[in-house]
């Protein structure tokens, strides 16, 4: 009887250990919205031009260019998050803050990609600046 109980315990511990081991090695998805929900999200008007920007109050400019390109040419006060570092922890802190973030720099395609990716992950208050 007691032996049986011990075996039961060992089996359960072993199995859950195996489960934990398997899960720890997996990349969990942090996308907040499903593809279907993103269809609706994508319809929001998130593109602004320079004229709109002047009417906006309290926003930050985020430039997606490579650092070298950023050095040579960027808007005043813009901060640099190269496209390649979009998902690093430091960048995520910026995406998560409450201010309106206007994405500039890099190609228009990359700006839209960044907007989509960040919106899929659930970040709010993002805009894309049109050339």
């Amino acid at each position: 009887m007691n032996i049986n109980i011990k075996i039961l315990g060992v089996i359960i511990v072993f199995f859950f250990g195996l489960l934990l081991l398997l899960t720890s090695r997996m990349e969990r998805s942090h996308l907040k919205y499903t593809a279907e929900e993103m269809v609706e999200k994508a319809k929001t008007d998130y593109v602004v031009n320079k004229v709109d920007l002047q009417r906006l109050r309290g926003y930050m400019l985020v430039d997606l260019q490579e650092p070298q390109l950023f050095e040579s040419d960027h808007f005043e006060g813009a901060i640099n998050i190269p496209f390649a570092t979009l998902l690093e922890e430091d960048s995520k802190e910026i995406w998560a803050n409450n201010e309106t973030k206007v994405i500039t720099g890099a190609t228009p395609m990359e700006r839209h990609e960044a907007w989509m990716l960040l919106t899929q992950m659930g970040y709010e208050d993002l805009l894309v600046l049109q050339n």
Partner: protein
Amino acid sequence: MGPIIPVYEISTELNFLVAFLIGLGFGFALEQAGFSSSRKLAGMFYGYDTTVLKVFFTAAITGMLGLTFMNYLGMIDMSIVYVNEYYIESAIIGGVIMGIGFIVGGFCPGTSVCAAAIGKKDAWAFLGGSLIGILLFGETYNWWKDIYTKNFLGGVKLSDTLGISDGFLVLLIIVAAIMMFWVGEWAEKKFKRPDITKEM
């Protein structure tokens, strides 16, 4: 992410090897539980041995809990996992016929294979009978075709029907099962039959 074989499109040979190994575990667990004995199985319905109830529900609960947690942890894609299709009439009629078969024959197909493996002659008779039964169904399929395919509801889940979360349904089943275990053990004491122990 699981289920491993359909997601990673693993070859048929390996798939069959996995099938064999899973079957190995299945057979071992069934035999260890005592499901190779028809009188132990039938004991369920006379209260002197409720092993069937205990094993069956413990296994179902373990499976449910495991699937719920795996789903939550993102380890399994439940949209691929087979959920039994529900045809109202055929499930009930089939279940009733199987119930009679159970009390008459003392086995179900899985346990009969298991009992046949350790040399029970009655299990071999049951196996032969079940082949005849399937043949009979195949031969008379046209008679049953309408009722067999009537009221198809698809792979519906009880939790969706009741409108509760999967986890909550699992908890309800666990509570029900624990009560049944308690009743089962009480019944085992009440309907104890020491006399038939000599017969083996």
